[in-house]
């Protein structure tokens, strides 16, 4: 193949376009910040990126320069002869090496200071936050429990695998774990924080624009670690309040006979030993709260979109979708399944 200059340029351009495709509005990306904390991290990231790119290019250019430069006397001498540089060259070389070493140390210090300043500014949010909100986040194998804390116990809301936050309000995430170490990381909003059994770890998130941001468990936690997804939905204050008030209400009582039958199917099966639906007798505490299940985006910690078909498949054979997960395989009669789906999806 003839590697002409034109072809090389075309290749580089194509590669560049491919790389640029990764820069668009992304739901799970550090360099597409959705809030001030992530903005600082992204700023730091770009600072590192451009500084180190400049250094990389400079080093490559110098290497190329030394390769193409004709060495004096190299053809004339055999390799066995010890080539001692002159005193003048020696001192010149020492000076070059010294300058390069000092420059390296200075650059590393600049990076260190930049990183400490950004990290400290993010950590300081806690002491500056005035109108902050607290969310208890508990990691489980393999789903997230989300609890909106409130001094008034009547206003505590429990949901799963979805965090709704108001724009412009700092949110303190109190992280816990019920089994093994998990890690909470929504790259568009903040940095990682591990959730450790019998410990409480705190982290701050804040969004400054509406958006849907994806988070995933960032610490290997067992078989279904990869299917432990969390969505953070940032919305304006009034929309958030409306959502919170809707979540506060007990589940809707079914009015038509099909959904009523679905509710009976739920209450008469194994479901109630793990799940709870407020407003009914189902009060299990070890699996996601289903009070407003129909309003959520996904099934099985967002492994599947929340649709009738997916829900049916999930209930009948959860171990096929997510092998090893802790949802029990429960025998349900074919005639009972459709009413059950109708009921669960009506829980808006």
């Amino acid at each position, binding site marked *: 193949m003839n590697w002409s200059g034109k072809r090389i340029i075309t290749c580089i351009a194509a590669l560049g376009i491919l790389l640029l495709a990764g820069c668009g509005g992304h739901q799970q990306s550090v360099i597409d910040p959705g809030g001030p904390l992530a903005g600082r991290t992204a700023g730091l990231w770009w600072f590192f990126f451009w500084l180190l790119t400049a250094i990389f290019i400079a080093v490559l250019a110098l290497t190329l320069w030394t390769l193409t430069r004709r060495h004096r006397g190299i053809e004339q001498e055999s390799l066995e002869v010890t080539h001692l540089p002159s005193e003048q060259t020696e001192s010149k070389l020492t000076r070059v090496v010294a300058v390069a070493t000092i420059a390296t140390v200075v650059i590393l210090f600049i990076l260190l200071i930049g990183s400490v300043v950004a990290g400290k500014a993010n950590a300081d949010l806690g002491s500056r936050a005035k109108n*902050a909100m607290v969310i208890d986040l508990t990691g489980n194998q393999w789903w997230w429990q989300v609890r909106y804390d409130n001094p008034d116990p009547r206003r505590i809301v429990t949901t799963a695998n979805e965090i709704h936050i108001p724009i412009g309000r700092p949110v303190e995430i109190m992280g816990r774990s019920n089994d093994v170490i998990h890690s909470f990381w929504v790259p568009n909003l903040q940095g990682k924080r591990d959730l450790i059994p019998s410990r409480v770890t705190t982290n701050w998130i804040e969004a400054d624009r509406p958006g849907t941001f994806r988070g995933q468990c960032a610490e290997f936690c067992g078989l279904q670690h990869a299917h432990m997804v969390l969505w953070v939905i940032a919305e304006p204050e009034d929309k958030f309040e409306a959502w919170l008030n809707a979540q506060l209400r007990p589940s809707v009582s079914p009015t038509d006979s099909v959904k009523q039958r679905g509710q009976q199917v739920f209450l008469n099966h194994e479901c109630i030993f793990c799940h709870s639906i407020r407003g009914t007798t189902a009060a299990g505490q070890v699996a996601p709260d289903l009070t407003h299940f129909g309003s959520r985006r996904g099934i099985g910690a967002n492994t599947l979109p929340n649709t009738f078909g997916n829900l049916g498949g999930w209930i009948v054979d959860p171990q096929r979708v997510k092998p090893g997960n802790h949802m029990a395989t429960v025998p349900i009669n074919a005639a009972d399944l459709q009413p059950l789906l109708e009921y669960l999806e009506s829980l808006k």
Partner: protein
Amino acid sequence: MRALATIVCCSILLLGACQREKRDLRPSPTRVALFGDAARQSPLRPGGPVEPQPVVTNPYNGSSYAIAQGQRLFNWYNCAGCHSQGGGGIGPPLIKKAWIYGGEPENLFDTIVKGRPNGMPSWGGRIPEYQIWQIIAYVRSLNGEQPKSATPGRSDTIQTNPQTLKSRTSGATK
């Protein structure tokens, strides 16, 4: 030749340990129904000769995965509420060899499915049968009835002391 024989023997020995790690990730949800006579505590019965009992085995016997699952379910379904972690409290202890209603897997299955007088609720139809077998695998591990190869030397959970919360710094609690 001898080296080859040693390697083959060692490999066979290693394969023997695979059973404990076997994971039944898609158990059948079907109900086999209650055992009835299969779980009799004694082969003796009135007015007839001694009949051999049908053998019922726990499909998860010797599986460390099932024992770990059983341990989790033991707490999930609040068995610990009465039996504590095996030492007993409201309910009888499970770390013992003398059982009121028999300690063989089929007796335990019967006890869990049907319940027993004075407090033990009936779990039949409430939790899947394969989970009952997992719980039995765990309960029998408490008495050393499981093979030593299947019972872990240490707990699956992280052993830490509870943390004391210094403060909740947030605005919502202020």
